[in-house]
C-alpha cells in the first residue's frame, strides 16, 4: 500500500519520524541508515542561545525505560541552521525543528527565525519539557498558557505547519489539547516524557543530579496510547503519537488509536538503526494484516 500521509500540509512519505532529543541533529545517524527513507526527522530541542544543560549524572536506566534530565543542552538555533541543517538531506526528507523558550516573546522570535529557513519543514513547539526551571512543562500544564504560546508561534510561522507537543503530566490532557487547537495548532504531538525519579540505596542519593527527570522508553507506551486515544476523541486535528515505540507493531498500535504518524524516541538508543528498521518492516506487517489504506486503519479503535 502507499505509506504516505499528509498532516495539515506536512507531507510524509511514511508515518515514521524520529523524536526530538533522541536523534541528535540527524547527522549522527547517517552512518546507520539512509535518512531519506524516514518519514521525517525531528531534531534536538533548539533554544535561541546555546544551553549547557543540567549537571551530571543526567541519565539513568529504569525497568524497560530511562530517565533523563538533560536540560535541553543544545548549540542554539543559529548554529543549528549554519552548521547542521546544510548537512541534512532536507529536500528529500522533512526536517522539523523542535523549539523551546522561556517566555512567549522568545518562542515567537525563535519560531520566526526557524520557520524562515528553507530546510525547515515544520515547527514542533515543546511546551512539555519537565527538565527546565523556567517555562518548560509549565506552559504545557496550563491550558491558557498553552493557547498563548501556540498563538504566538503560529502568528510568526508563516506557512509552515505548527506542531504542539503535549505533556502527559497533567490531569486532563484533552483540556491542553483543545487549548492548543484554539491557539491555532495545525498538528498535535504526544507524549513527552513522564515526570519521575530513581534512587540508589547504596549511595542514598537520587540517581540524577537534578533529582527529577523525564521517563521514556517501552515502559511508557501504555500511557502514550491512552493519551492519543483520549485526544483523538476530543480534538479534530492530526496527531503524531509517541512514547515507547520500538517496532513496526508499536507504530500500528498508535495508528489504531488515532495517530496519523509516530515518532521513535528512546528506541533509537537501543540500536542506532532502529528507526530505519521500523520503517523497513512496516510494509510487510501491513501486508500481513491485510491493511490497504491508512484511512481504513487509522483510529479504528477510537470508538
Amino acid at each position, binding site marked *: 500500500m502507499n505509506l504516505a500521509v499528509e498532516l495539515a500540509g506536512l507531507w510524509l512519505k511514511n508515518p515514521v519520524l524520529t523524536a526530538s532529543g533522541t536523534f541528535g541533529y540527524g547527522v549522527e545517524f547517517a552512518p546507520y541508515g539512509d535518512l531519506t527513507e524516514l518519514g521525517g526527522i525531528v531534531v534536538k530541542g533548539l533554544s535561541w542561545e546555546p544551553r549547557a544543560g543540567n549537571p551530571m549524572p543526567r*541519565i539513568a536506566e529504569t525497568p524497560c525505560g530511562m530517565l533523563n534530565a538533560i536540560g535541553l543542552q543544545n548549540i542554539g538555533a543559529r548554529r543549528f541552521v549554519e552548521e547542521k541543517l546544510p548537512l541534512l538531506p532536507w529536500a528529500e526528507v522533512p526536517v522539523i525543528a523542535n523549539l523551546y523558550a522561556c517566555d512567549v516573546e522568545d518562542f515567537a522570535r525563535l519560531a520566526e527565525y526557524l520557520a524562515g529557513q528553507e530546510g525547515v519543514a515544520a515547527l514542533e513547539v515543546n511546551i512539555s519539557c519537565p527538565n527546565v526551571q523556567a517555562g518548560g512543562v509549565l506552559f504545557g500544564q496550563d491550558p491558557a498558557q498553552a493557547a498563548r504560546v501556540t498563538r504566538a508561534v503560529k502568528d510568526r510561522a508563516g506557512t509552515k505547519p505548527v506542531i504542539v507537543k503535549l505533556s502527559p503530566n497533567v490531569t486532563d490532557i484533552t483540556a491542553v489539547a483543545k487549548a492548543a487547537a484554539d491557539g491555532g495548532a495545525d498538528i498535535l504531538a504526544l507524549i513527552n516524557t513522564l515526570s519521575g525519579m530513581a534512587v540508589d540505596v547504596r549511595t542514598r542519593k537520587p540517581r540524577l543530579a537534578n533529582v527529577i527527570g523525564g521517563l521514556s522508553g517501552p515502559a511508557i507506551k501504555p500511557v502514550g496510547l491512552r493519551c492519543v486515544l483520549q485526544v483523538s476523541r476530543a480534538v479534530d486535528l492530526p496527531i503524531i503519537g509517541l512514547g515507547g515505540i520500538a517496532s513496526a507493531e508499536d507504530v500500528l498500535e498508535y495508528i489504531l488509536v488515532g495517530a496519523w504518524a509516530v515518532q521513535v524516541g528512546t528506541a533509537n538508543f537501543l540500536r542506532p538503526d532502529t528507526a530505519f528498521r521500523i520503517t523497513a518492516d512496516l510494509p510487510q506487517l501491513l501486508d500481513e494484516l491485510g491493511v490497504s489504506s491508512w484511512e481504513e486503519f487509522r483510529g479504528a479503535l477510537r470508538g
Partner: protein
Amino acid sequence: MPEDTLLAAPAASSPVCRELTVSELRRTGSESGLASPSGAGPDHSHWLLDLELSEGFPGEDGWTPGQFVMLRPVSWAFEPLWARPFSICMLERGVLRIFFQVVGRGTRAMSALRRGDRVVVWGPLGRGFVVEPETSTLLLAGGIGLAPFIGYARRHPRPDKARLFFGHRPEIAEYPLDLLPEAVVVEASRQTCAEELACFVGDLERRIAEYAARQGLILACGPHPFLQAVQSLALKHRARTQLSLENRMACGVGACLGCVTETTNQGLPVKVCTQGPVFWAQDVNLGGAA
C-alpha cells in the same frame, strides 16, 4: 568551542551497526579456559569475548586504538535497556575481542553468553589515542583500563618505544598481559591496601615527571579517581597527557547528551562518546563528571 576541535585522533572509518556472533568467551585467570559451567562468573571476574566479524564491519585498518564499541546481546530485548560501551581490545583477522570485567547486571549477563549467541554491535566509535611512533610513550592503566592498551601496543609501529605501568587490585593472572607485544616493557603494581595505593601514586608521579622532562607522551585509562590523579599530576608537571574517560552512555553516537563532561574553556559540555573518549588532560574538567 566548535563541536569538533577537541579531537585527539581522527576516526579511521565510519561506524556501522551489525549483529555479530559470539565465537568464544573465556574467563581469564581460570584453569579451564572455558566459561564457567554455571554460566555467570562471580562478581569482578574478567573475561575475553570474541565476536566474529560480519560483512561490512570494519576490520584491521578500520579503527584507531582507544576507540570503543557499543554492545547489546539480542537476548536482552528491553532489559537492560541500554547497550554497554567497551574499548576495542583487539580487532584482527576477522575477530573483535573485548576484555571486560563483571561489575553489574549487564556485564554479568555478558559473562553468560554462549558460542553462537547474537550480539548487536555498533562502532568503531569515538576518537582514540594519538600514536607518535618515535616518541617515548608511557601507558598508564588502572585495572580494566588495560583493555584499550592491548590494542594500542599491538598496533604501535615501534612497540619498543612504549612502556606500560599497570596498577591493579585483582590478581595479575586475571589480566591477559600475554596479548601485549613482547617489546613492550611492563611494570605491574598491585594495590590491596591504602599504603600500597599511596605508594603507587608516588610511583605514578615519578614516572609522569620523568616523561614530562623528556617530552614523552603519556596515555591513561582507568577508574575515575585514577584519571583524576593522573590529570592533576600531568598538569603539575606539564606532561603531554591524554586521558580516556569512561562516562555512562546510553547511545554512544552523540544523540542523547547523557555522557558529557565539562571542558576547561567554559564552552558547552562535550560528548565523551563522539568528542572523546580520549581527551588531552588540560582540556577536560573531571571534577564535575560522573
